[in-house]
């Protein structure tokens, strides 16, 4: 066998390929590919996910309480059973943390009607129930605001004519939605007093047009997600039976 040509070829290859030729970008093609059920499911990845999925589902479907009835945010005009539960859970779960941190009590709670994302169905309540009613990551915050700002809040609520969840605040309106009486702790709103209002970070930052939290010089962030407050509340109550009450009512005259 004659190696000479082979060697020559090798030499050429060496010289040729070591001299890096400048590469020029000539063409770009861009698109997006939909990830749909027409694509194959990678079995190895699927098998890897499965134990995680099974654990999450098992946990999500674990029964943590029981609902006496079905509760929907459309059942009631100015206050609803589920909305009252929503605000009361924020108080009951949030107040011990706030008190421990500040030595003070939460005076009232305000959430938003739109923030109740699902009904609670009669029967078993699972962790998944908490995820359904509160899929968002919002946390409980406590805003110290003046009585005058509480009055703006009451004006907002009368104007909205919706069952925004409230707790510890009592509002009576006449048939034209004019204020008859508003109280916190059975006392009229004192415009010079500071009230500690628990809400969520979304509303505190002006969500749903709730501008009355500003200005506020300080904010207590409880680092407690509303969903987790629900999960803890359900675990603490083997049965729930919230009702429509008189916290926000309209008179017939």
């Amino acid at each position, binding site marked *: 066998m004659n190696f000479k040509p*082979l060697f020559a*070829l*090798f030499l*050429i*290859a*060496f010289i*040729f*390929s*070591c001299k*890096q*030729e*400048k*590469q*020029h*970008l*000539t*063409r*770009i*093609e*861009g*698109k*997006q*590919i*939909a*990830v*749909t*059920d027409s*694509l*194959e*499911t*990678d*079995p*190895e*990845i*699927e098998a*890897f*996910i499965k134990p*995680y*999925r099974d*654990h*999450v589902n098992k*946990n*999500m479907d674990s029964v943590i309480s029981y609902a006496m009835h079905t509760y929907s945010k459309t059942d009631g005009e100015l206050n609803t059973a589920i909305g009252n539960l929503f605000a009361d859970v924020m108080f009951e779960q949030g107040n011990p943390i706030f008190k421990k941190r500040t030595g003070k009590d939460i005076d009232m709670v305000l959430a938003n009607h739109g923030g109740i994302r699902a009904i609670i169905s009669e029967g078993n309540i699972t962790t998944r129930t908490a*995820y359904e009613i509160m899929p968002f*990551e919002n946390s409980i915050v406590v805003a110290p605001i003046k009585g005058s700002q509480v009055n703006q809040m009451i004006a907002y609520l009368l104007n909205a004519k919706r069952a925004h969840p409230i707790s510890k605040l009592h509002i009576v309106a006449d048939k034209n939605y004019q204020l008859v009486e508003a109280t916190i702790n059975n006392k009229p709103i004192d415009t010079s007093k500071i009230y500690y209002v628990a809400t969520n*970070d979304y509303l505190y930052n002006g969500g749903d047009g709730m501008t009355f939290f500003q200005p506020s010089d300080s904010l207590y*962030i409880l*680092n407690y997600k509303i969903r987790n407050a629900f999960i803890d509340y359900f675990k603490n109550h083997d049965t729930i039976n919230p009702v429509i009450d008189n916290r926000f009512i309209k008179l017939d005259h």
Partner: protein
Amino acid sequence: MKRRDFIQQTTAATALVTIGGLTLPSFSSAPKGKHITILHTNDVHSHIDPFGPEDGRNPNKGGVARRASLVQAIRNENPNTLLLDAGDIFQGTPYFNYYGGELEFKLMSKLKYDAATIGNHDFDNGIDGLYAQLPHAKFDFLSANYNFSNTILDTHVKPYKVFIKEGLKIGVFGVGIQLDGLVLKDLYKETDYLNPIEIAQDMSRILKEEEHCDLVICLSHIGYKYSNNPNKPSDLILAEKTKNIDLIIGGHTHTFLPKPTVTKNAEAKNVLVNQVGCYGINLGRIDFYFDTDKNKTANGTSIIV
């Protein structure tokens, strides 16, 4: 005659490659066009499972196991592929609440992601929560405009990385959105946010002039554009105020583009901006074709979107 030349050249090239392969693999580059494929996702938000058939918006769409088979098929077709993510990997399904991002990072590692940038939701368990999950990520986190030097993430996030594929240098840098007002300070702690546009100007210069990259890619979580706040830094502004960037892969605004946007940079050259919505519903694919023949680029690079 031409045909014969071609065959001869091909034969010679094959022979060269063979010999090179036997002796000096690193010098085996054949004088043919090179092809780099960039695949990308953004704002997957812990969507590991596909949406169910009953889903009101995205029935039967998404799913990591399907994305895996799609990515593998493309890698089989072109091994010179990079897979990138533009942030907001975390938050959106109970997988995140239960495992804190562990499963997301492990799956991205299995899919052989090459790099990701950091989205605002990636701070949802705090900077410590993100740090705690880093051992599960076998890919790099890139962010040039978050200064982490006074945080636990110091030295764990690089401003950029240069990948070498088929002898070509691909520089990728990351930029993230202003955290103040979007993420609680308690969560991002001493992370210092720097202007992403100015940083992108620096990064593109470094990658082009100092690192001599053949391709420069910006991995961004600053958002596509803000119609109500047109001066807020966005991918379209970043494209317009920089040079030497070939591709901006975006996130944050969950923008579903009908096709990648072609826009002009500071030198009136074309830049591609792409974002593929959210939740792993789509995979972005950008193919870059190179040639040694300068004549082919005399009329500029052709872009097909």
